[in-house]
């Protein structure tokens, strides 16, 4: 079942490539939409059959390269299932949004189908090498998206920077994985076996080095300060659909790695170095928000808020590794908050990046001061963007509030100072979004010179449907979150038990 969900997009991609170029551009996108919809339906079916109390489910284990300790092992639990669902939903939204795309559509659709398989595969992988394979392929896929459909020559430069930077991270990760592999007896890369064996317990400096390698690898992908510098150019010069996937899904791979790999497999070192992780998280929160505040480019600003939002996740997982001054319930709350924040950030930032794509489509620029009084011309666009911005800054009623509330409650007891500092991040985010909204949508109507005399057109249906859907899901999670939290909470309790051993 999981393998079907994972490889269905790749299968469709292969069929599209093998068939002659018979279809029209629109038909390719429709095939993509159909595929993404089927995949989402399958995940919904998976979710209904999922029993949160049962731990890892839908497992499938096949011998792959037994000589090297590598196996094909997939499964979902409460940590990965929400992200799998998010992946399918966001790819469907992006597919609908892409109906306007006219540039080399066949390759475009195939790349995104490939990326969907890779992202799903990463979240269901229960083997370190399988995880790594998908981790690396996601970089390759996104490189081609940015290089091929980004904004001109700068897009290619940004793609190169993105590739080099994140590839370094992936190789650091690989070194860490090898360290784990060699420590386990018998040598294996299987996540479940490694979690059970806890091979680096009591290995002091060696375990610390392994955590350093894995931590750096994941931190680059997340990204946290100081490894975030690849993110703004990659986002600014990527196409809107690519940005939405990059922020919505690919960034989660790093954060997910912390809860899936670093915490359960290296509990001792995780507890030992929890302070470092907390500090990195808090700095990311504040620094990301401050730099976002200084941006004049709408898309770049959203990119930096991603650094800020992912900082909360890192803060929470760090606090979950601090045993002193707290209890298991609080720590579990922090982990639940972190996972909820990943889902929430995927939904809201995905929508925001799609909206910034609309802005670029109309005015060919992201500069905030090029626009003024847009609300008069484009009421729907202004409305949806305002809702997305408020959702992103954590207003109650949306998923962001639920997530951040849990993170702060779970972290406050053990890491009071860091959490207090991180709280200011919320204030800064509110300021920067309100500033951008005011200057772009309110005031005297003024448009960039590049817009023809016909004026600016409002959101079309292919733009409204995906963005509003994503925000609607964020709203549902914000109002009735139990269906999501019921799935995540048992898994976070398990993680907390594993970290505490």
């Amino acid at each position, binding site marked *: 079942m999981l393998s079907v969900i994972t490889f269905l997009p790749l299968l469709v991609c292969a069929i599209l490539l093998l068939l002659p170029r018979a279809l029209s551009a629109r038909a390719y996108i429709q095939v993509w939409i159909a595929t993404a919809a089927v995949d989402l339906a399958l995940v919904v079916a998976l979710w209904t059959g999922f029993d949160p109390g049962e731990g890892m489910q839908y497992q499938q284990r096949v*011998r*792959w*390269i*037994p*000589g*090297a300790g*590598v196996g094909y092992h997939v499964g979902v639990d409460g940590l990965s299932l929400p992200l799998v669902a998010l992946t399918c939903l966001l790819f469907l939204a992006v597919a609908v949004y892409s109906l306007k795309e006219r540039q080399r559509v066949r390759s475009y659709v195939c790349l995104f189908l490939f990326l969907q398989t890779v992202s799903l595969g990463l979240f269901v992988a229960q083997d370190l*090498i399988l995880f*790594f*394979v998908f981790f*690396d*392929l996601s970089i*390759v896929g996104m490189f*081609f998206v940015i*290089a*091929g459909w980004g904004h001109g020559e700068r897009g*290619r430069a940004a793609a*190169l920077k993105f*590739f*080099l930077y994140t*590839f*370094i991270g992936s*190789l*650091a990760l*690989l*070194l860490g994985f*090898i*360290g784990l*592999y*060699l420590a386990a007896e018998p040598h294996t890369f299987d996540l479940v076996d490694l979690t059970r064996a806890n091979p680096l317990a009591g290995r002091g400096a060696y375990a610390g080095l392994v955590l350093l390698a894995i931590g750096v690898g994941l931190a680059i992908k997340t990204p946290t300060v100081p490894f975030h510098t690849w993110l703004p150019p990659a986002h600014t010069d990527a196409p809107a659909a690519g940005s939405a996937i990059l922020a919505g899904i690919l960034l989660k791979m790093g954060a997910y790695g912390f809860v899936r790999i670093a915490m359960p497999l290296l509990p001792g070192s995780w507890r030992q170095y929890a302070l470092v992780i907390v500090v990195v998280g808090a700095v990311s929160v504040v620094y990301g928000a401050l730099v976002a505040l200084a941006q004049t480019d709408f898309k770049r600003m959203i990119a930096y808020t991603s650094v800020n939002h992912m900082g909360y996740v890192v803060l929470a997982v760090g606090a979950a590794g601090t045993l002193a001054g707290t209890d298991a319930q609080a720590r579990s709350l922090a982990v639940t908050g972190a996972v909820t924040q990943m889902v929430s950030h995927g939904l809201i930032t995905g929508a925001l990046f799609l909206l910034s794509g609309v802005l670029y489509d109309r005015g060919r620029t992201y500069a905030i001061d090029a626009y003024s009084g847009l609300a008069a011309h484009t009421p729907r666009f202004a409305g949806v963007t305002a809702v997305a911005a408020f959702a992103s800054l954590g207003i109650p009623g949306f998923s962001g509030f639920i997530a951040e509330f849990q993170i702060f409650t779970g972290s406050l007891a053990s890491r009071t100072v860091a959490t207090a500092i991180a709280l200011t991040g919320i204030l800064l985010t509110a300021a920067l979004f309100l500033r951008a909204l005011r200057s772009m949508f309110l005031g005297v109507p003024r448009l960039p010179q590049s817009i023809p005399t016909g004026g600016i057109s409002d959101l079309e249906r292919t733009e409204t449907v995906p963005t509003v859907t994503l925000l609607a899901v964020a709203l549902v999670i914000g109002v009735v979150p139990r269906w999501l939290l019921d799935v995540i909470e048992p898994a976070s309790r398990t993680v907390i038990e594993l970290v505490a051993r």
Partner: protein
Amino acid sequence: MNENLAALVPELALVGTAVIGLLAGSWLPRRRQWIIAVLAAAACAAGLVATGVTMATDREQTVFAHAFAVDTATDFGRLTVLGALLLIAGMSVETVRGHKRETEYWVLLLLTGAGTLALIGANDLLTLFAAYLLASIPAYALAAYAKDERGTEAALKYYLMGALLGTTMLAGTALLYAAGHATLYRELNTALPTAAYGLVAVGLVGVLAGLLFKAGAVPAHFWVPDVTDGAPTPVAAYVTTLPKIGGLIAGFRLLHQAVPGTDVNWPLLLGVVAAVTMTLGNLAAFFQSSVKRLLAYSTISQVGYLLMALAVATRTDLAQRSLLFYLAAYAATNLAAFAVVTELPHARTLDDYRGLARRRPGLAAVLVVCLLGLVGTPPTGVFLGKLEIFSAAVDGGFTWLAALAVANTVASLFYYLRWLAPLFRLTPAEPSATAFAVSGRWSAATAYTAGAASLLLGVAGGAVLPLTTGPLLP
């Protein structure tokens, strides 16, 4: 004494076919010289079958007073070498067809291939040196095959380096003989630990010098870029692939079988050589604009990674497996890249590849697989090889070397991407159609086969890896 010739079928098939081919080629008219090519391919196929039978029936043995070992390393090395020879033959077809010296090409290729096979199995210093000569001398002639200025210069450089380091190797052999009173590895193994340290150290370095020349490792790497650039492309593919397989497996066997007990700190020596080789190869590749020179330096850096396995030869069980697997994956990947270059004879610089993805999507796909493969992107074969070799290095106590290799891998990404990026670039200044004129179907088919093999070795690595584990016979 075991003198079972049946154990040597692959070597004999190549040498025998070379002799038959030379005689037959003298009488065949030029347009029928393709028959020799068919014979050569048949010889490789026969060797593959014979190796398969040996592996299936467990006929591992040493022959001729233990001077030649037919064991796991030999078997797997034979499969790699013969498979690679077939691929090289495939991409050579268009280059040499109808050439007035076509027969010579095939004969020389068979002879140097036989020499490589002999290197792999050599279990004795003198066998090793004879194999070194058999593998090298035909290769010098191949380098100058086109008889043009650049080819001649390349051949001269190749020959001078080879002669110098061959002499060094012979001197090293003499010193080891003086120290251990034997040339057989099994006897050296027991004699060398008690022998004079200086003799053993200098002798070992001398012998290794010759093998490093074959592998194209720093400091014996100066010939690699010139020969790769000057020789015809299929020959360039040959000199950057097969001698490495021969030299590295021979080196592994020497280190593992003959000198493990000595006080000489050869693991550190090889670790340093590996580090320097991968770093220099990468740095030199950075700003190359000619695709062949870029590939040449990339092969040097790949040897650096491969040498890591030699450094930990006796320290971990993973070393042999990682070396053999990496060699096979590297051979398939490197040959696929060269097959693409052969297929596009007019595209010489990186810029000439601009827009290839649109014009020749198949070839562009092969290049993407190979170049990303050479970086070590999963799920290609080289990724699995790198994974194994890094594991071996860490397990053998060379964590610093593994970390350096990781850093180098990242650095290498830069120049591979410099080649990859133009493939997808669409600019008004697209080169004219002649840049992408293809040389023929054979090279293209070779590129696709080798590219698929490179990918398959990664995905189906589980089926291949068990073939690489087994004891070396003393």
